[in-house]
């Protein structure tokens, strides 16, 4: 299992956001992106998730058998700034939908909805409409979404924004567990995350040295 990126660069509008970024992640490895606001962390994560087409370079995913079977995006869970949950539906309905829609990828299986909610310590409020939850509770539930369907790669964009300290520790624990089980994690964050990141990448925004390549 391996997630590789080669010489990625990406545009937003007319502006080059970053260029020449490469990494190579194996089972159990994590990459943490840091950098100033607007330096392009979210953009990079979205490129990896296949949501933005890179201006150059490519992202490659090899499954357990070493084959380039599926698209990289399909092996990924993406937790962005927005939670991808409907405020009108209850938490349980939201989770059930994503479980049924995403379905487990081969190589693992998700937990039940009740278990996932317990794992983020919110088992008691599954019946509330998602819109009623507090900001931190919403974030936790969005994270629970990663647990109900199995994906080897987790792409997390500031997962701990709006979380209290105990929940931060909880997320770190869940991420460690995922890594331990052979998963891969790509996270962008401003706060030190409490898990061993095997790789770090500081985004610096657009480098003038790269300008020639960008044009």
């Amino acid at each position, binding site marked *: 299992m391996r997630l590789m990126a080669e010489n990625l660069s990406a545009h*937003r509008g007319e502006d080059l956001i970053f260029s020449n970024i490469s990494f190579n992640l194996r089972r159990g490895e994590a990459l943490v992106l840091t950098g100033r606001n607007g330096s392009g962390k979210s953009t990079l994560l*979205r490129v990896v*998730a*296949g*949501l*933005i*087409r890179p201006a150059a370079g490519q992202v490659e995913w090899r499954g357990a058998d070493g084959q380039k079977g*599926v*698209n990289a*995006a*399909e092996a*990924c869970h*993406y937790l*962005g*700034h*927005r*939670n*991808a*949950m*409907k*405020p*009108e*539906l209850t938490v349980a*309905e939201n989770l*059930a*939908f*994503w*479980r*049924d*829609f*995403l379905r487990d990828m081969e190589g693992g299986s998700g937990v039940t909805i009740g278990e996932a909610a317990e794992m983020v310590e919110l088992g008691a409020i599954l019946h509330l409409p998602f819109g009623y939850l507090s900001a931190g509770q919403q974030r936790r539930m969005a994270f629970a979404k990663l647990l109900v369907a199995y994906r080897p790669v987790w792409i997390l964009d500031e997962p701990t924004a709006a979380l209290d300290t105990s929940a931060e520790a909880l997320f770190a624990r869940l991420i460690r567990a995922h890594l331990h089980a052979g998963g891969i994690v790509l996270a962008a964050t401003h706060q030190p995350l409490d898990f061993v990141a095997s790789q770090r990448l500081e985004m610096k925004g657009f480098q003038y040295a790269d300008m020639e390549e960008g044009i």
Partner: protein
Amino acid sequence: MTALLLRDLKLSIRAGGGALIGVLFFMTVVAVIPFGVGPDLNLLSRIGPAIVWIGALLAALLGLDRLFQTEREDGSLDLLLMQEHPLVLVVLVKCLAHWLANVLPLVIASPLLGLFMNMDEVAIGAVMLTLLVGSPALTFIGAVGAAVAVTLPRGGLLVSILVLPLCVPVLIFGVSASYAAVEDPAPFLPPFLILTAITMFFAVLGPVGAALALRNAGD
């Protein structure tokens, strides 16, 4: 996919207005028309099919422009785009859900509405049939517009210019087929077949177009 269908149906019942809006709207229109044209039952029955079809157009348009916008605003669109399900299928299912929740009730209610409009049985049957066959095309056309609306940061205007003109042929063939069923000289089948063809055409073109637009939304 069934999950998506069910979720969308649930959402449109809980949040969007869905089923009842079309039917209720129609009731209001029907309640008003007699005030306009006078209690002339003949006239009512004559303009009936056109009114029912216009009602269907409205029902199809209600909320359709936000079909993908809501998904995008809460981030769900990202996840939908990432899956291996062909995107075309996702769009198709979303269209289906929209049609089921918003347009089908009108199709089902159309006999009742026909009665209010004093239409005869043949006309009612014809309208119902043409609606059943033709209205999905409206949804599919609207989906393309909705997808384009998502990609354009400020392009609502474009969408309306794009969608409504495309709907006109559907409406025209639908209405003329309904009339053909009642009025003798005009044959029913040709416009009806054309209507079917249009729907089938847009059933393919609509989702493909919408999926293409969504793929290129990229942000």
